[in-house]
C-alpha cells in the first residue's frame, strides 16, 4: 500500500504545484496586463486611492482632490472650473483625461519615476500616498481679464512673458465646467461627455493650442516682413503701388483691404505696407523673395515644429513648395497658412524679445507632498528666427501700426503698444476670423499676446481685427501693465 500512497502524495504535490504556478502567473506575471483591462474597476479605484495632487495658480488650487464618502475616496473638484478648464483639462471615470491632468498625470497621481522612493516610503510607513502639486505660470489676474474681455465671443486669448516663455493667460471659448465630468457616476460622466462632445462650437477643444487651425490673415505679415528684412530686399526695394494685383499664372486678382492703393505714391515701402496692412505689396514682396525663403522663415518661427507646454501643441502649417500665385496669397496669411493662437503670440514674442522665442511653458514647478521640488522649469530658448536688428525694425512697424495704422484700437494712454491686426477670409461668404497680436510696453516688453475671434465676432464680414480683437487685447495688456 505504501507505493500507492507515495504516488497519491505525488499527485497531491502536483495538484498544489499547479496552484502555485497559476497564482504566481496571475499575481506576478500578468498583473500589469490585468490592471490595464478596462473592465478592472479595482485599477480605476486604485487610481483614485492616492490623493491626487492639486494644480495651483499663484498658490491657489484650480484643481484639487477632496475626501469623498464613496468607493473612490477622493472627489476631484475644480473651484473655478470654466475659467481654467482648457488648462487643467478634466479627470474622469472612464473617459480619460486631458490638459495638465493628462500630461502631468503621473506626477499628480504620484506614480512618476521621480516619486518612486516616496512610494516605497509610504508603503513602509503606512502613510497614505499622495500626488505632487503642480504650480502653473498662469497669472490669475491676466487670465480673468482675458476671460472677461473675450466675453461671449468664440475664440481664444494667449498671453506670454516674452523674456521667459511663461504663459500668463490661456483662455478658449466656449468653455465647459470640468466638474460635470469629475462625478463618480460613470453614466453621468458619459452623458455629460456626450453632450459636450456633440455640442456646437466644440467647448472641449482648447482653441489656443489644439483647435482647428485658423488662417492667420495679416498677422502673418510679421513673418513675411521678417523674411523681407532678413533677406535684405526690404532695405533697398519698394514695390509698385497697385490697386489690383493679378496673381501670377492665374486669372484671379487680389486687392487691398479697403480697395484702392496702399497710401499715396507710385511705389510703396515694407513699412507702409505693414503699418497700413496692405495685401498687394506684401504679395509682391513674397513673390520677389520666393517660396522657400518665406517657408523657411515660417518654420523658424515654429511652423511644423512639435512643442509641448507640456500639453502637445498642434504645429502650424504652410503649403510647401508653392507656385507664385499661392505664394502671393500666403504672404498675407491666406492660401493654406494655418496657425494656432499660441503660434501667433510667438510672432510677437520673437519681436519683443530681440528676435529670440523662449519656449512657451505653462508649468512653473512640481512639488512633492513633502515640499521637495521635483521639477523646476527654467526658461529655455525655443528658436531665434530673426536678428536683434530685424526685431527692432519690426517693433517700430508694430508701434506705428497701433499709433497711426491699422491697429489703433489697441492704444493705451501713456504706454507704447506694438501690434498687428488680422482679418482673415475663410470662404467667399463665410464670416472673417479676426486677429490681434502685439506686445507692451514696446521699449521693455512684459507681455506678448494673441487674440483670435471666430465667426467675425458675430458681425459676419463687417467686423475687423481692429474693431473687435484689438480692444480685447488692450484690456488684457492693461491687466498686465497695471500690476
Amino acid at each position: 500500500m505504501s507505493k500507492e500512497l507515495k504516488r497519491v502524495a505525488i499527485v497531491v504535490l502536483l495538484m498544489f504545484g499547479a496552484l502555485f504556478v497559476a497564482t504566481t502567473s496571475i499575481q506576478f506575471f500578468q498583473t500589469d496586463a490585468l490592471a490595464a483591462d478596462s473592465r478592472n474597476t479595482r485599477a480605476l479605484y486604485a487610481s483614485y486611492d492616492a490623493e491626487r495632487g492639486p494644480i495651483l495658480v499663484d498658490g491657489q488650487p484650480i484643481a484639487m482632490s477632496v475626501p469623498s464618502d464613496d468607493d473612490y475616496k477622493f472627489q476631484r473638484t475644480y473651484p473655478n472650473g470654466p475659467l481654467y478648464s482648457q488648462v487643467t483639462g478634466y479627470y474622469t471615470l472612464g473617459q480619460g483625461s486631458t490638459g495638465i491632468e493628462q500630461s502631468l498625470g503621473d506626477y499628480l497621481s504620484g506614480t512618476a519615476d521621480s516619486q518612486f522612493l516616496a512610494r516605497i516610503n509610504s508603503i513602509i510607513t503606512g502613510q497614505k500616498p499622495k500626488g505632487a502639486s503642480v504650480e502653473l505660470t498662469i497669472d490669475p489676474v491676466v487670465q480673468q481679464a482675458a476671460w472677461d474681455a473675450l466675453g461671449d465671443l468664440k475664440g481664444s486669448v494667449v498671453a506670454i512673458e516674452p523674456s521667459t516663455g511663461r504663459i500668463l493667460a490661456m483662455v478658449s471659448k466656449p468653455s465647459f465646467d470640468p466638474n460635470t465630468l469629475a462625478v463618480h457616476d460613470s453614466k453621468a460622466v458619459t452623458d455629460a461627455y456626450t453632450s459636450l462632445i456633440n455640442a456646437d462650437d466644440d467647448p472641449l477643444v482648447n482653441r489656443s493650442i489644439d483647435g482647428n487651425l485658423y488662417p492667420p490673415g495679416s498677422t502673418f505679415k510679421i513673418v513675411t516682413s521678417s523674411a523681407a528684412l532678413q533677406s535684405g530686399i526690404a532695405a533697398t526695394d519698394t514695390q509698385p503701388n497697385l490697386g489690383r494685383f493679378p496673381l501670377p499664372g492665374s486669372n484671379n486678382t487680389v486687392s487691398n483691404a479697403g480697395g484702392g492703393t496702399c497710401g499715396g505714391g507710385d511705389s510703396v515701402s515694407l513699412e507702409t505696407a505693414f503699418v497700413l496692412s496692405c495685401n498687394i505689396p506684401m504679395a509682391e514682396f513674397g513673390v520677389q523673395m520666393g517660396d522657400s525663403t518665406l517657408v523657411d522663415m515660417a518654420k523658424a518661427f515654429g511652423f511644423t515644429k512639435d512643442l509641448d507646454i507640456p500639453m502637445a501643441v498642434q504645429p502650424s502649417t504652410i503649403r510647401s513648395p508653392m507656385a507664385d500665385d499661392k505664394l502671393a496669397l500666403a504672404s498675407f496669411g491666406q492660401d493654406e497658412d494655418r496657425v494656432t493662437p499660441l503660434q501667433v503670440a510667438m510672432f510677437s514674442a520673437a519681436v519683443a524679445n530681440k528676435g529670440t522665442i523662449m519656449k512657451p511653458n505653462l508649468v512653473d514647478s512640481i512639488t512633492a507632498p513633502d515640499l521637495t521640488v521635483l521639477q523646476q522649469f527654467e526658461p529655455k530658448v525655443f528658436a531665434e528666427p530673426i536678428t536683434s536688428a530685424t526685431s527692432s525694425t519690426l517693433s517700430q512697424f508694430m508701434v506705428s501700426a497701433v499709433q497711426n495704422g491699422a491697429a489703433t484700437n489697441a492704444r493705451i494712454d501713456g504706454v507704447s503698444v506694438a501690434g498687428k491686426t488680422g482679418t482673415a477670409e475663410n470662404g467667399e461668404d463665410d464670416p472673417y476670423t479676426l486677429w490681434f497680436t502685439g506686445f507692451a510696453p514696446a521699449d521693455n516688453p512684459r507681455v506678448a499676446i494673441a487674440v483670435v475671434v471666430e465667426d467675425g465676432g458675430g458681425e459676419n464680414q463687417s467686423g475687423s481685427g481692429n474693431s473687435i480683437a484689438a480692444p480685447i487685447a488692450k484690456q488684457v495688456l492693461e491687466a498686465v501693465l497695471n500690476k
Partner: protein
Amino acid sequence: MNGSSPVIEASPLVPDAGRGIRRIRVPQKLRNLELFLLIVACGINAFAVVLVQLGAIGAVDSTVITLGASLSVLVLGMHVALRYVAPNADPFILPVAAILNGIGIAVIYHVDLINGDTGWDSTAIRQVVWSAIALICAIAVVVVIRNHRVLQRYTYVFMFVAFVLLLLPMLPGVGQEIFGARVWIHIGPFSFQPGEIAKILLAIFFAGFLVQRRDTLSLVGRKVLGVRFPRARDLGPIIVIWALSMSVIVFQRDLGTALLYFGLFVVMLYVATGRTSWILLGGGLFLAGAVIASQTLTYVNDRFNAWLDPFSQKNYDDVGGSFQLVQGIFGLANGGLIGTGLGRGRPDITPLSQSDFIVSAIGEELGLAGLFAILCLYLLLIARGLRISFAGHDDFGRLLGVGLSFVIALQCFVVIGGVTRVIPLTGLTTPFLASGGSSLMANWIIVALLLRLSDTVRNQPRLVI
C-alpha cells in the same frame, strides 16, 4: 513488544503507577507543542481581525473580537479534550485548521464591513457561530469515537445515509436551488448542504467496502496491454459511484461535488488494490461523462467556455459567463506580490467573495505571499493526514486516512484551481476558509477523525513515529 519505544502499550487513561510518568510525559510534549501552536494561531487570528478593522474602518471594535475570542476558547477546549481522550494525536492538525478558520473569518468580516452587514446579517458572525457548532461536533466526535474501527462495523449504514443525504435536496419542499445548483436543503431558518457531510460518510463507506473486497478487486482480471483489467462483475461498485456522480451533475447541477466524490473513490480504490487499471477506467469514465455533459448540459458548456476564454466580451457579458471568474482574477492581480493589506482591498467587487471566491479575496488582501502561506498550510494538513496512512497498520484506518486527506486536497484543488483557471470553475467551498456551516462542520469532523486516527497510530506498539 519493544520496551525501548517511548510510546508504548495501553491507553494513558489507564493509570499505571510503575511507568505512568514516562508514558504521560511524552504525550504531554505533543500536546504542549499543540498548545503553543494554538496560542500562536489564535494570536494571528485576533491580529487579522484587528488589522481588518484598522484597514477598513480605522478603529478597533471590540464586539467581533469578543466573538472571535469565544471561538479561541472552544479551540482550546478541543485541545483540552485531546489531552484526555487522544493524548497522542498529531499536534499540527488542530492549529492549522484553527488558523485557516480564523483567516477566513477575518476576510469574510471585511466584506461584511464594506457591505455594511451587522448583527445576524453579518456573514462573519454567522460563520463564528457555525465554527462554534462545528467545533462542538468535532469535540463530540473525538470524545465519542474512541476507536475508529467501530466505524468499519457500520460500513453499509454509512453508505445508505450518504445516499439519502445526497438525495435530500431533490425532495420537493425540503430541497432548494441556489445559483442553479440543487444541493441545499432548507428546513425552517436553516439551510444546509448535506453533500458536505456525505463526503465523510462516503469516505468511511469506501474504506470499509474496499478493505472487504480488495482481494477480489486486485487479483482477478484479464491482462490487456500489460494492464490487468477487472472482471465485468467486479466493475459493479465503480459503475454505481460513477452513476451517482453523473446524476449529481445532471440533477443537482453540481460539477464540483461530482468530481470530488468520484476522485475520492478512484484514489481510494487505487490505494486499496494497487491497480493502475482502476485509475485509467475511472479517469476515462469521468472524462467521458464530463465531455458528454459539457456538450448536452448548457450550464456545463458555459463553464467550459468561461474557462477557455474568460476575457472575451461575449463570455464576460453572458448570464452564467465569466464575469465572476474575471473579477476574481482582477482581485488576485490587484493583490500582486504582497497584497493590499487586510481590510484595504476591494474583495466585495467579486460576487460570492465570502464563499466560493474567498481565495481571490485572500489573494487580493494578503498577496501572492499570503496565498502561498495558505496553500502551504493546506499541504501541511494533508501531509499530516497522509502520514497517518503511511504509519498506520490496520488497512481500514490507512484507507480512511488517505481518503479524508485526499478529499481536502482535491477540494482545495477543484475550488482554487477553478478560481485561478487551472480547471473550469465549479461550485465548491474552500475548506475552513469559505463561509458556510455545512462545509465547516464537515471539515472540522474530518479534523476530529484525523486526530483520532493519528492518536491510534501513535498508540500502536509496532511502529515508532
